[in-house]
């Protein structure tokens, strides 16, 4: 049996489900938010949302990097393709996301002749720049604290090798300021947080300590197998039943309290916090990463005059509310009707980690 399989087995899970049911008789139904898109997908795939209803309602948060990128920024990215001699490199997810014009995507631009390449690691983009000195290679840096260290490492690599034809369009985002904004919103109604194990592997579990400390909300850092998630939900419900908001780390096989010091150091060396625009949440101070002045030579935004469009979101599309956990995918009038993965309207239906894509792909019977 694979190691990870032990977290997928249903044995023991039944007991947890029963116990969660008993605990919620005391607390009443609880609303928990998973912040991470990978959790959203794992929850949908395992059928946990249905298994936990109606005792526990799981809401998806702003944890899909593609989904929180506003369509104006996608328009700006699409414009970058038109620059002569540019090779745009990106993680696969972003290729299908439409800008403000439905159907206008990097995938379509590529079919029309733009140089767009999918990479699994940003280091592939650096190598591409080294082997194509005649071209300008831009890496689309999206993601949270998880992809920030790798992106930073690439900039250091390009700096060391003197690769002036490599640059990063830095759209990276930080988790904590977004969560604070979410909690401060008048329609916020969440009793506890399932915290993202991958982000915590970098930042450390302690980075989520502000949730119980400042807001009285229990938080559990969780892994991504069904067993991890179910156990974490059980812990959250237990903490709520005890009336004891605390931070716990379920994902100890990967996450240390203090995180990954090397990754944090490289982020700090290359980036500094700056304001960033989020779909559904608006502009949040300190919620993005900018390249520090000494690394601006590798900033694609400066180099190519990146100008995000001011496009408003598509009428009817409720991605912005889905991202905040205020509305569930099925509440959107477009869901499954005009908006499907084959012909998506909003990013939540495109991204492999989007709440709408998860709800559609793994729709329960």
């Amino acid at each position, binding site marked *: 049996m694979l190691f990870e399989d032990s977290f997928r087995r249903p044995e023991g*899970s039944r007991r947890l489900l029963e116990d969660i049911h008993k605990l919620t008789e005391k607390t009443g139904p609880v609303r928990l938010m998973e912040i991470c898109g990978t959790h959203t997908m794992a929850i*949908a795939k*395992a*059928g946990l949302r249905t298994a936990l209803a109606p005792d526990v309602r799981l809401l998806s948060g702003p944890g899909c990097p593609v989904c929180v990128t506003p369509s104006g920024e996608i328009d700006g990215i699409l414009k970058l393709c038109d620059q002569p001699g540019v090779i745009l490199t990106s993680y696969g997810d972003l290729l299908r996301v439409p800008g403000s014009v439905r159907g206008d995507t990097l995938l379509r631009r590529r079919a029309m002749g733009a140089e767009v390449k999918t990479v699994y690691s940003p280091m592939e983009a650096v190598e591409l720049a080294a082997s194509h000195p005649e071209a300008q290679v831009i890496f689309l840096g999206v993601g949270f604290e998880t992809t920030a260290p790798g992106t930073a490492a690439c900039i250091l690599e390009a700096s060391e090798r003197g690769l002036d034809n490599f640059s990063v369009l830095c759209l990276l985002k930080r988790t904590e300021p977004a969560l604070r904004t979410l909690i401060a919103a008048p329609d916020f109604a969440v009793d506890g947080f399932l915290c993202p194990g991958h982000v915590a592997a970098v930042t450390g579990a302690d980075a989520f300590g502000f949730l119980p400390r400042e807001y009285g909300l229990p938080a559990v850092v969780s892994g991504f197998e069904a067993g991890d998630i179910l156990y974490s939900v059980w812990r959250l419900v237990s903490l709520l039943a005890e009336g004891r908001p605390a931070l716990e780390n379920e994902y100890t096989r990967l996450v240390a309290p203090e995180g990954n010091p090397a990754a944090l150091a490289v982020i700090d060396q290359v980036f500094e916090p700056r304001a960033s625009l989020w779909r559904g949440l608006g502009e949040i101070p300190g919620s993005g990463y900018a390249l520090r002045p000494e690394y601006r030579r590798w900033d694609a935004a400066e180099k190519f005059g990146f100008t995000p469009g001011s496009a408003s979101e598509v009428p009817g599309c409720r991605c912005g509310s889905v991202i905040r956990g205020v509305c569930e995918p099925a509440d959107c009038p477009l869901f499954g009707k005009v908006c499907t*993965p084959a012909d998506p309207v909003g990013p939540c239906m495109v991204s492999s980690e989007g709440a709408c894509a998860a709800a559609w792909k793994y*729709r*329960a019977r």
Partner: protein
Amino acid sequence: MKEIVTLDHGSGGLRTSELIEQVLLPAYGNAALNELGDGAVLSDLGGRPVFSTDSFVVTPWRFPGGDIGKLAVCGTVNDVCMAGGEPKYLSLALILEEGFAMENLRAIVASAAETAKACGVQIVTGDTKVVERGHVDGIYINTAGIGVLRAEGLGRGAVQPGDAVLVSGSVGCHGAAVMMARGDIPCEGTLLSDCRPLHELSRAALSAGGVRILRDPTRGGVATTLNEFVEHGPLCIELEEEAIPVDPAVATACDLLGLDPLYAACEGRMLAVVDPAHTDAVLAALHALPGGEGAVQIGRVTTSRPGQVVLNAAFGSRILGKLTGAQLPRIC
């Protein structure tokens, strides 16, 4: 100096003849092909003909467990077999990029010839084109196949509630192996494609009786193929997640890339829907053959959710839709 394919080899002139006589005929040679006419005149099939075609653009052209030559023969042979036919003859057309190494072409031709021989089919006609550098990626192949129908009445119309859904072995190996060969997975391993001809397995299943429909789950994988069995109809296929065989290496590779093995391509696996009274006989027949050792029942046909494929997993059931978009480009 390395021998390469040039535009001259596709000119229809002297070099084309040389290519045919020195590379293709020695590998494929048979009475019908040796005539080198514009088409092959075949002997009477002795039954209703089954006809299929497929094109192959896989990159890289060589992958663990096979190459584009083997794949081009297996792909069409398997399509004829899944339609209930016994494959007899193939056409094989090459589209080559100038500069392609002749040594690699010989290897691909040899591999196609060997696979055809193993399947008992003859390559009786073909074509060779060469295009300018950059216009194809090394080599593309089209094959078409003719066989004789051995089983009447196969098809989705024959599927009944209560029928068993079987698979001949673990799923998703080809898709994962091609990813690995492309260097898309940042680790090393010995993941082999499941690329193999299905003529023996399909013959055995049909002989055991009770077969309603056969398909090889290529692009789109098991999930997409099973959807095609029931979509827009009154029946449902219910799968048991625990019963579906997935090689641990494939599961891990798919996990790393966020892919689902149920949507990853197979090139040597067979899905069969069979009368429940014949399930044991069909499984026993498959188990006795190479490539069928891992055959197992993975689900059954019901009427619970008309037109849909449902996966019964640890915490409940969910719908398995068809693949949306390309999970992976150019795997076959």
